[in-house]
């Protein structure tokens, strides 16, 4: 069954930020959708609406053919992993995981069997009798996940599940969430403000800006073909370049004319989006026929295994990423298919 928002609107009383307006999308059976957006964009609100902690002002929420809009949280059968985990401090890890089964009146033997099974699945079998406070952040996160899946929920909702952990642990937890999610049929909605999390874990990514759904698509679609510059910036570093169409395949920019297949009428203004890692250092000046540019590097810093250079092409400020450290003046090529044209940003 799929989880579906139909034209859902909600406004927090007395607070203009964090509301959502006219949001519609669907999380398919067994699909993981990452809901992403800056803080105050309404992504957590949407999750709370799905969980039943809030009721939409307008619109409806569906699970398959059943409308859930006014169904209280208790009756939704949704597994929720909270940002701060909300593990009950007066219960052991096993008792926490057992809680939803007890609430459903599952017989005792069945309960302990499923608790042990689920704890083993998240790698916490040895810590069953420990209190939450004695566990590390990552372990608590797994316990919360176990508690949310032990009763085979009809949907799984994860609110910033990775925000409290970082580094390698974050990556391994990400993999674990993905692995657990992969074996369930339940639609899974994950809220995150971290683009890397969203793009690496999700089947599809939904980008929310100011309470509105700007774009939903596969990580590749959202990253490579964003609907606008805001989405592009939110999903990763990007150069946004103002341009005017000279013909369907050429534009004029502050860096001179560039080739790109934008398909717009002559004279149309647009914004070109260019990811810094798609700019190439050219080996020889004549190697590439199209979009060969002279890049003047002003500042270069090392970012992991790559070099991030801020500089200029003619009068245009540009950022580029490359595996080799660029010298102060370098020849760069931009493949035409690396340039993505969107409607110009409206500055209000």
């Amino acid at each position, binding site marked *: 069954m799929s989880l579906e928002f139909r034209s859902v609107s909600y406004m927090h009383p007395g607070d203009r930020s964090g509301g959502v307006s006219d949001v519609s999308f669907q999380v398919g059976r067994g699909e993981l959708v990452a809901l992403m957006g800056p803080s105050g964009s309404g992504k957590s609100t949407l999750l709370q609406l799905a969980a039943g902690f809030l009721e939409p002002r307008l619109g409806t929420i569906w699970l398959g053919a059943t409308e859930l809009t006014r169904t209280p*949280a*208790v009756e939704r059968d949704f597994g929720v992993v909270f940002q701060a985990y*909300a593990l009950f401090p007066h219960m052991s890890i096993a008792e926490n995981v057992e*809680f939803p089964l007890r*609430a459903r009146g599952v017989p005792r033997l069945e*309960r*302990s069997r499923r608790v042990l099974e689920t704890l083993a699945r998240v790698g916490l079998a040895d810590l069953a009798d420990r209190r939450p406070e004695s566990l590390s952040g990552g372990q608590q996160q797994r316990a919360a996940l176990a508690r949310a899946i032990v009763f085979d929920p009809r949907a799984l909702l994860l609110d910033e599940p990775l925000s409290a952990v970082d580094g390698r642990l974050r990556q391994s937890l990400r993999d674990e969430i993905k692995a657990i999610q992969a074996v369930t049929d339940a639609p899974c909605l994950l809220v995150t403000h971290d683009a890397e999390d969203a793009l690496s874990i999700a089947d599809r990514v939904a980008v929310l800006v100011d309470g509105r759904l700007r774009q939903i698509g596969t990580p590749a679609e959202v990253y490579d073909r964003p609907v606008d510059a805001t989405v592009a910036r939110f999903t990763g570093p990007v150069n946004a370049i103002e341009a005017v169409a000279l013909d369907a395949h050429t534009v004029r920019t502050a860096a001179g004319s560039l080739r790109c297949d934008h398909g717009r009428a002559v004279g149309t203004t647009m914004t070109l989006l260019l990811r810094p890692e798609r700019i190439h250092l050219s080996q020889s000046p004549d190697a590439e026929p199209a979009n060969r540019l002279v890049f003047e590097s002003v500042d270069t810093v090392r970012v992991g295994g790559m070099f991030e250079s801020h500089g200029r092409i003619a009068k245009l400020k540009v950022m580029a990423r490359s595996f080799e450290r660029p010298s102060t003046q370098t020849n760069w090529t931009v493949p035409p298919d690396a340039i993505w044209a969107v409607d110009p940003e409206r500055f209000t």
Partner: protein
Amino acid sequence: MKAALWLYLAFVAAPILVIFAGAFGETWLGTVLPTGFTLKWLLNLFGEPAYVKAFATSLMVAATTILIGGLLAAPLAYVVLSRPSRLGDAFVRLLSLAPLSVPPLVLAFSLMTAWSGAVGSLWLLIAGHVVLTIPYLLAPMIAEGKTHDLAAFERAGASLGAGPLQRMRWITVPLLSRGVFIGAIAAGSISIGEFQLSNLLAAFSDRTYPVLLYQAFQAATGFACAATLVLVLLALAAAIAGSTVHRASGISARPGLAR
């Protein structure tokens, strides 16, 4: 710093030790400490029906005060904790501070004026004690609840399929139990030791223990010390119970899930 601490402890402990000495001393005339050892004062105390009755009255008033106060404070704490709002906080602060800032004597006189028909009734005394002790019941409950973000646990419980009653039994009550217990001890201690309201509001037949105690000191010192000793021991028991509850609550708060 250390010396000051010892001085303070001595200052606090001295009266208690003197009470002990007085309660078991045979004669206490013109000496710093009494001489001889006797149990007669204690035996006298237990043989005096008025004191036994007053003690029973005090315990009854304290128990009823805790019960009524608790029944008022618990839902109040619950509302404040599960629906945090500035207005609610202000209301609870007012409710908590008002009885502390009004001297019990003033409270007694205003109760006597407002409910002149009920003066001498035990219920008026209990009502006065409830007003006096409710801040002490409310504060630890709210403090306990705030350390836990009860609202978040309520939501978690609901999302896991627990109805309001199950959440109350398995989450709210166990999490607040330590606060309830500490509040009950504080309220009970205050009620049992309360003199001003009791002296003015209680009928002769319903005199509470402190009222009689006051009268005892005007008679034999040894007897009065023995009578006071009962309160001292009660207070010590309450203090010990209150300080060990932290460990105990960990166990008692367990919802008793199957292993």
